[in-house]
């Protein structure tokens, strides 16, 4: 049985229509846009304006305080998007049965989730570009010397952080619960990314523990790539391991309603 289409009709592309809608909705979230796109750069600017923070310091391996905060700010963008902004949207979609509604149309609920991940990831990458550009132009922080290694380490960290967010939003029984759990993991992630104190300047047991976390290992890998060295195999394996495990868990454990 072949269906004939009347002339003038076009072939619908449900995935694209979902992406267009979700993009429009994403732009209606000024809070998310601020915390993902602006806040990491703002943090860098504020620190850079503190007198002396742009001078090389032995504490941070010979780079300036503000230079040490460039990778930290980049990780912060991923954390803001992955564990606060995105879970809020997805858990609300689950709670209000938006995913079920979409599942009864030619579009798929997976289109909606895919669009959300893509949009938040895109915002993070824009934010990273902004941080690197402002660091370079305003405070003379050189761009990562080993750029491919830096990008690889960063993307793995992005997958791991988004995996945590997706796991939270896909398993929390309500959007309220998702935001509570999100807040609980938000602060350890910020700490291990080095927001309070750069990981490279940590020492002893704290450093060892932090180096085993996804954002901690990523922070160390990014520091090395920033300086033009390749990250250590262990650092890459830790971030990659977290990325794989968290992504698989997030997909496996996702509950549609």
């Amino acid at each position, binding site marked *: *049985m072949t269906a004939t*289409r*009347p002339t003038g*009709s*076009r*072939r*619908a*592309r*449900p995935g*694209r*229509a*979902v992406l*267009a*809608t979700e993009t*429009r*909705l994403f732009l*209606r*979230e000024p809070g998310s846009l601020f915390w993902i796109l602006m806040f990491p750069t703002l943090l860098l600017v504020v620190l850079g304006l503190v007198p002396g923070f742009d001078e090389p310091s032995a504490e941070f391996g010979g780079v300036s305080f503000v230079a040490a905060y460039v990778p930290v700010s980049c990780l912060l963008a991923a954390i803001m998007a992955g564990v606060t902004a995105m879970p809020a949207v997805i858990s*609300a*979609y689950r709670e*209000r*049965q*938006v995913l*079920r*509604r979409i*599942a*009864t*149309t*030619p*579009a798929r609920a997976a289109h909606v989730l895919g669009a959300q991940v893509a949009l938040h990831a895109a915002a993070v990458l824009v934010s990273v570009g902004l941080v690197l550009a402002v660091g370079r132009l305003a405070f003379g922080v050189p761009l990562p010397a080993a750029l491919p290694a830096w990008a690889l380490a960063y993307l793995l960290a992005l997958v791991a952080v988004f995996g945590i967010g997706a796991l939270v939003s896909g398993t929390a029984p309500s959007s309220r619960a998702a935001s509570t759990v999100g807040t609980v993991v938000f602060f350890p992630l910020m700490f291990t990314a080095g927001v309070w104190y750069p990981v490279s300047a940590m020492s002893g047991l704290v450093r060892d523990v932090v180096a085993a976390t996804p954002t901690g290992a990523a922070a160390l890998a990014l520091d090395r790539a920033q300086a033009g060295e390749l990250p250590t195999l262990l650092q890459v394996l830790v971030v990659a391991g977290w990325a794989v495990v968290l992504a698989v868990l997030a997909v496996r454990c996702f509950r549609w309603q």
Partner: protein
Amino acid sequence: MPLIEVRDLRKTYRSAVAVEHVDLDVHDGEIVGVLGPNGAGKTTTVECIAGLTRPDHGTVRVAGHVPWQDRRAVTRVLGVQLQSSGLQAKLTAREAVAMVAAFHDDPADPVELIERLGLRQVADARYAHLSGGQQQRLAIATALVGRPRVVLLDELTTGLDPEARRDTWQLVREVRDGGTTVVLVTHLMEEAQQLCDRIAVMAAGRVVAEGTPEQVVARSANSTVMSFTVPADVLAAAALSGLPGVGGVERRGDRLEVVGTDDGVLAVLHALQTRGVEPVGLRVSATTLDDAYLDLVRRQDAAPTLQESA
């Protein structure tokens, strides 16, 4: 071939049986009502048809396609309005209809549909700011915008005021007159009687009666109600309750009310004649669909108890 064909459907959640041995046919151009109390299995049946739930046993075909296997084919011919589903909070009514329209190759005109559902005034309001009735009408618009061959409407007038309800009924008739088949899930007898060509009454996970509303009333054990005036000292209610075809006898002051089958009515009249009692002010009428429904549903609820005691 029926447009929707459900055969021997069975779905269990943990230990609870949601539906069992459910058969349902929906033919082209019909408005079919699925009635039943909460927990009767209406939602599970509808979810299986919409492809949201995969049954443990049995088959469902929508225009020949199995919903949970060929969802693309099914979602093209089946429009769905689910009671418990929403849209993105910051999406406007206009954008919502346009989005779903963009999912389909040959959709209806979103502007026209918004107009027809009385949403023009709020077309640019966000979903979260719409009233319950407006959200309901928007859900109907998104169910219709793909020009489906058959549309599933789940409790579509819940939360609407009586006037909006009548308007929605009129809309459903127009939809059917436009060639779209309608499956209506409802617990309102008036709605079923007004709109449906056929109804299926569900109780405790099964279809307990099916047919036109008139047929369902006739199939009820107490399809007829009769009442007459007779003082209690002349005739006790108990004297009639044992007669064949009599489902129940109740005394209200001087009047006796008897429900039962048509044969039961004749048996009562015969018994009165034998006793020389004159049924003053005799009234005989058909049971309403409401009463027939309650009778069917209660009988079903009572059935397991009978089995246990046997």
